[in-house]
């Protein structure tokens, strides 16, 4: 078995490929900020309305905007990874990439990095726009825990993105819509806009198996009670580690299957 070696230069090569693509295409740049911005504008006004109706929202005005921005870190992180793979499939490029000395895990690391950049541009832009539009700054609402929550959600986005990408590589472009839709399967059980205890007992059990449940409960603890719950945070980290390991395993199996079936040469429909 060959040693697990890592080449920063090869990672830079793949990163460069996506960076060139992103920075040369204004529709791609616009797409990064469009939905996060629309979400922030929408939920800001919903918050203003609900604040007049609900004491919870009135006392914790940032609860929805924080949730929307954090959810977008997860969604954009996952989408960033999926798009990193889909762009290669659209371009019929895997055949060249994987006959170069590039290792599959170096490719994954580079795609994770470009997904991080996409999140920083997209969600960062929307977070900054929320200041003049709604007078809301997520760093002010959540403090340093913003970084902790975003880091966990980014990691979980990578994990889901990796599993989806492996699936699309294996099944072909017919499964492309998974990249946009699959994440929303977990939104109802992630406690984004309501506490996990709202769910039926059996769904609560599933919800706590995802890092998102602990992150959004943790976010509410900060916004409503003004305290950072370390227990919840470490639970989120533990679940993140489990899901990253699952994603690595699933992706490895799917990639092996893709290689066995010769799909790297025929990536398309």
């Amino acid at each position, binding site marked *: 078995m060959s040693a697990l070696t890592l080449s920063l*230069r090869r990672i830079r090569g793949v990163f460069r490929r996506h960076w060139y693509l992103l920075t040369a295409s204004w529709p791609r740049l616009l797409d990064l900020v469009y939905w996060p911005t629309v979400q922030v504008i929408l939920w800001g006004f919903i918050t203003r309305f609900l604040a007049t109706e609900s004491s919870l929202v009135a006392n914790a005005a940032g609860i929805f905007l924080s949730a929307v921005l954090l959810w977008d870190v997860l969604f954009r992180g996952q989408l960033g990874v999926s798009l990193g793979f889909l762009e290669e499939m659209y371009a019929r490029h895997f055949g060249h990439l994987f006959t*170069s000395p590039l290792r599959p895990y170096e490719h994954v690391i580079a795609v994770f990095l470009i997904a991080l950049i996409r999140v920083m541009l997209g969600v960062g832009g929307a977070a900054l726009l929320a200041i003049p539009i709604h007078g809301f700054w997520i760093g002010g609402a959540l403090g340093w825990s913003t970084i902790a929550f975003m880091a966990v959600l980014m990691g979980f986005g990578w994990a889901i993105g990796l599993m989806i990408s492996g699936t699309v590589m294996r099944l072909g472009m017919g499964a492309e819509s998974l990249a946009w839709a699959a994440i929303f399967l977990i939104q109802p059980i992630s406690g984004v806009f309501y506490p996990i205890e709202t769910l039926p007992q059996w769904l609560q059990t599933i919800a706590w198996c995802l890092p998102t449940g602990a992150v959004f409960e943790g976010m509410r603890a900060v916004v409503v009670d003004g305290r950072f719950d370390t227990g919840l945070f470490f639970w989120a980290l533990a679940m993140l580690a489990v899901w990253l390991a699952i994603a690595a395993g699933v992706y490895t199996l799917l990639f092996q299957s893709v290689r066995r079936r*010769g799909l*790297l040469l025929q990536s398309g429909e």
Partner: protein
Amino acid sequence: MQAIAVRVQDLVKRYGQVVAVDGLSFTIPAGRTTALLGANGAGKTTTIAMLLGLLAPSAGRIEIFGLPMPKARNRLLPRMNFSSPYVDLPLRLTVRQNLKVYADLYGIPHTGQRIDELTQRLDLGSFIDRPTGRLSAGQKTRVVLAKALINRPDLLLLDEPTASLDPDTADRLRGMLAAYQQERGAAVLLASHNMNEVERLAHHVVMMKAGKLVAEGSPAQLLERYGREDMEEVFLDIARGRSRAMEEA
């Protein structure tokens, strides 16, 4: 005795019930050009994909420079490269950007200098900063060949390298490939449907039909064996299972 760059032994690739490559054995000598011929669906591209480690064989053995492929893929791929009309480079990136990306992937030192050399050799200068997707088919082929040569490979696998090129450009490229092969002493595997190209470039020919090797030898040997004047006729004889004697009868 000629050193062996590639040794393929009893290679099989099955997709369910379909056998794409069926017990194929051949060798590619170092420093020589070997043509892999066969009608569409004969198994050429599948064979090349297995040589590149893109596709896992169902059975059999591939040794490249004495190392097993795909097991030693990571040691072998830096010494290999390929071009194919079935695989693209990112179309929105400029030619220079694509070459920079591949210079990184192959760890090429002095990237700018190497890109300049390839630009000159393949006459890319007039479109080096243009998006690859806006090039003509012939220009794109030259760009893919530049990518294939960026690491000065010891084993170059070319799948229909002059498809869609006009005769003048194709002829220049053949000259360039022959010069590279001689300068570098590289082993070249050429899959082509252009028999003029095969006669000009190939030292050795491997003919496939329905996944099996059906004939092998130098172009001169094959012409003599089949009693033909050119490789096109030899190709048709093998592909259609006919012979000159049958035709004359």
